[in-house]
């Protein structure tokens, strides 16, 4: 039986070559991916939204995303929304630094002491938001307590392969993520239609006002998936 991917939080960082805060965004994201929450997070290279194919965009809809941006142009947040779906959370680094009274780094090439302090604070904030999204509680782990052997090399998610199905919902063609996987699991487990829709909502961001239409469309799709029972003679 196929297994739905474990729910993780996607982190998408701006590339930010032009600004020190852009480098801060990148370094902090790697910190969370490799050290603070290596088993709860994945990342996607932002430019892959254009250079990849449907799978990269489906990835960003399949996982709840946190966008991390180095400036108020908010490339990560806006591109995620443009190509896929609105991120679950968005952090704009200058706003975060100002709120915490932290100095911005001065160099875009190599983070200075101010940059290192900013990384620590920002990484902890992102980790906290990951925990909130996943509904888990992690004991606070200071970075120095993470042994080197626990560091996980971040890998990007190029080639996500999450299946995408087009459904007609409220008169429009809409892409819904992971339906074949959800259907196969539910068909095998014999769960109720309500539980099916709950699972669909876990993997797809559905506007509240459209929930009834989505529910109907996914249940219709599931009915087509389920083989018709054999008719008894008589």
């Amino acid at each position: 039986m196929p297994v739905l991917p474990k729910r993780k939080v996607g982190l998408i960082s701006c590339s930010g070559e032009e600004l020190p805060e852009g480098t801060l965004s990148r370094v902090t994201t790697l910190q969370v991916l490799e050290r603070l929450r290596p088993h709860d997070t994945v990342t996607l290279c932002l430019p892959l939204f254009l250079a990849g194919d449907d799978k990269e965009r489906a990835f960003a809809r399949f996982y709840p995303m946190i966008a991390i941006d180095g400036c108020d142009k908010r490339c990560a947040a806006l591109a995620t929304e443009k190509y896929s779906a609105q991120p679950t959370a968005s952090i704009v680094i200058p706003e975060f630094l100002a709120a915490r009274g932290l100095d911005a780094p001065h160099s875009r090439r190599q983070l200075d002491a101010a940059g290192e302090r900013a990384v620590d604070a920002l990484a902890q904030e992102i980790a906290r938001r990951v925990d909130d999204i996943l509904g888990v509680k992690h004991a606070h782990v200071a970075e120095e307590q993470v042994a080197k052997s626990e560091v996980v090399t971040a890998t990007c998610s190029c080639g996500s392969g999450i299946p995408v199905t087009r459904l007609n919902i409220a008169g429009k063609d809409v892409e819904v993520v992971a339906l074949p996987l959800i259907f196969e699991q539910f068909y095998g487990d014999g769960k109720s239609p309500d539980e099916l829709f709950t699972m669909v909502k876990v993997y797809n961001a559905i506007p509240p006002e459209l929930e009834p239409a989505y529910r109907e469309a996914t249940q219709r799709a599931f009915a087509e998936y389920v083989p018709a029972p054999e008719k008894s003679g008589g």
Partner: protein
Amino acid sequence: MDYLETIVDKFVFRVARDCRYNDADIWAKRVNDRVRVGLTDFLQQKSGDVAFVNLPSTGKSLNANDALVALETIKVDLEIAAPISGRIIAVNDALTAHPELVNDDPYGEGWLAELEPSNWADYDALLDAETYLPQMKARAELEREK
């Protein structure tokens, strides 16, 4: 070419239906009286972009699990073991100039070597695609959790 596919976490892995497999994630395919071998899609994705391929000499005889081909990727150094016993009849010389073929077309143009089997029973004992797929998937899931 016809494939089975599986998704693990965020990756898609393909398994060619017309090949046989071992648990080192090497494929083998009968081509007339020879067996052609190469890396599976799972192994090439896991290993990264291949940069150098050290091919063996033809004519050499080896046993199953003897070192066959050495690969260097941008991430790791790999030693590929022969899935069957036999004599090396051919090697894919194209890989010297184009090692990326191993990643781009692992079941086709990215083949590594061809062997004349000592015993066809070795080949028959390898896993078919349907049997290999769930075992590979389990290894991929374990890899994901590292």
